[in-house]
């Protein structure tokens, strides 16, 4: 096995292991295949790779348990967008809950459940609260003192509303058919209230996962 081959195997090992590898464990890899090599030749190969990586975006770094290949910190910054996770889309149940809170506030969970006909999961209430769109505005003085939910200013800001009554009133929504080209109707409906910059244009189809 010549130097280049040894270097190639070591590079592949360092990139594939997912953990730092010591000189000894690298040596063991090649010895297993009956190649005669020693620590020195392994160290030489690592040194050669280190040299090769100069002027590149990656580098070889020695840490306690051995050597690893890592992205240079100067480049890490460029890669930040790679770790941006897209949270899963909101469910229909969540949107319905939010809409009910918006239109019927202050409203208790039991009342939401009554309209929706199904239980409202704690998760939904938590997600909406964490997002800062709803909050507990009080408690109803009935057994159990259930919390009453209302929308927040952030909710209005997010949806581009100045006041809640810029949402179309129920009367107008009654004629709103989401199935048949609703966009125009809705803009009309909102236009009646002079809603300024509602993000109506975003596509609501859950299909587009870029």
């Amino acid at each position, binding site marked *: 096995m010549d130097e280049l081959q040894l270097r190639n195997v070591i590079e*592949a090992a360092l*990139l*594939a292991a*997912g953990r730092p590898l010591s000189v000894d464990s690298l040596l063991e890899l090649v010895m297993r295949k009956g190649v005669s090599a020693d620590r020195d030749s392994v160290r030489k190969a690592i040194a050669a790779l280190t040299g090769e990586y100069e002027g590149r975006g990656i580098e070889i770094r020695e840490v306690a348990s051995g050597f*690893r*290949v*890592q*992205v240079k*910190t100067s480049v*890490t910054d460029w*890669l*930040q967008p790679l*770790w*941006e*996770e*897209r*949270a*899963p889309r909101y469910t229909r149940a969540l*949107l*319905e809950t*939010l*809409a*009910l809170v*918006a*239109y*019927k*506030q*202050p409203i208790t969970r039991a009342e939401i459940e009554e*309209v*929706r*006909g199904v239980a409202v999961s704690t998760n939904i209430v938590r997600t909406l609260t964490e*997002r800062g769109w709803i909050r507990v*505005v*009080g*408690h*109803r*003085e009935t057994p159990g*003192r259930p919390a*009453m939910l*209302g*929308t927040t200013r952030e909710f209005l800001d*997010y*949806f581009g509303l100045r*006041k*809640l*009554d810029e*949402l179309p*009133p*129920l*009367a107008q*929504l*009654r004629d709103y058919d*989401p199935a048949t080209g*609703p966009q125009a109707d809705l803009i009309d409906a909102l236009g009646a209230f002079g809603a300024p910059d*509602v*993000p*109506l244009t*975003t*596509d*609501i189809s859950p299909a587009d996962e870029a």
Partner: protein
Amino acid sequence: MSEQSGKTDRPKLKLVPVVPPPVSDEAGAIAQAEMPFAIVEGEPITQLPRDLYIPPHALEVFLEAFEGPLDLLLYLIRRQNIDILDIPIAEISRQYVKYIELMREMQFELAGEYLVMAATLAEIKSRMLLPRPLEEEEDEEDPRAALVRRLQEYERYKQAAEDLDSLERLERDVVVAEAEVLERTVVTKLPDVALKALLTAFVEVLERSSMFEHHRIRQEPLSVRERMSQVLVNLAGRRYVDFSELLDPAEGRVGITVTFLALLELLKDAVIDVVQTDEFGPIHVRAAQPAATGESPADG
């Protein structure tokens, strides 16, 4: 049975190809030569099928090796090097049925599909035995054709599965190269919601309920609803709030009316208490107290 050993581990079924023994007539009455059918755990098996010539556990191994009746049929065909388009249906059927009967005799839980196939084969056989008028012959499909189609169709996907398995794949054949990244900050982007989606959801939930009907009769403007929430937030954590504090003159007449309506709604829902200790004295508003304390004026 002599060939059954007491071992609990699975037997290695090593089977040897044999020359078919001469046969007299019926399936059951085969004259059995000395030739072994199989060698199980080193023991040659020369018994007739009726006499459990494959030990039960071996038969189970046998059945498990197949993915279903089509697979078993294909095996029977392939083993004899017969072209799939050229199946001697009677022959194959008989072998197939014999296996099935054996397995039933062993009281195996035999998947229903195997029995359905046995019935299908029997049907094909009987249809082929029936003489048909000449003129019909053109329309009526050879009963074997449908079976051959199924077998071919199954075989091509059986092959496709093997091809798929032989592709180089992650974990088994392909190792991805990765470099360590220090200081990676994971940012979770929250989902976007369009107002339209919210309204659509609302309309749908309303359609499922009878809220529209209610609201034809009584419909508070949303501003009142919003103000109800705001009043509650103002009251939260405070013992009493002066009524006039809740009314902001800067909002003008409309604003004051909205607040007033909100207060009335809240009062009606028994969510707040309005307290006036002296006649013409200051009016105080507070969040409704738990009924148990009995001091809520709303009780009366």
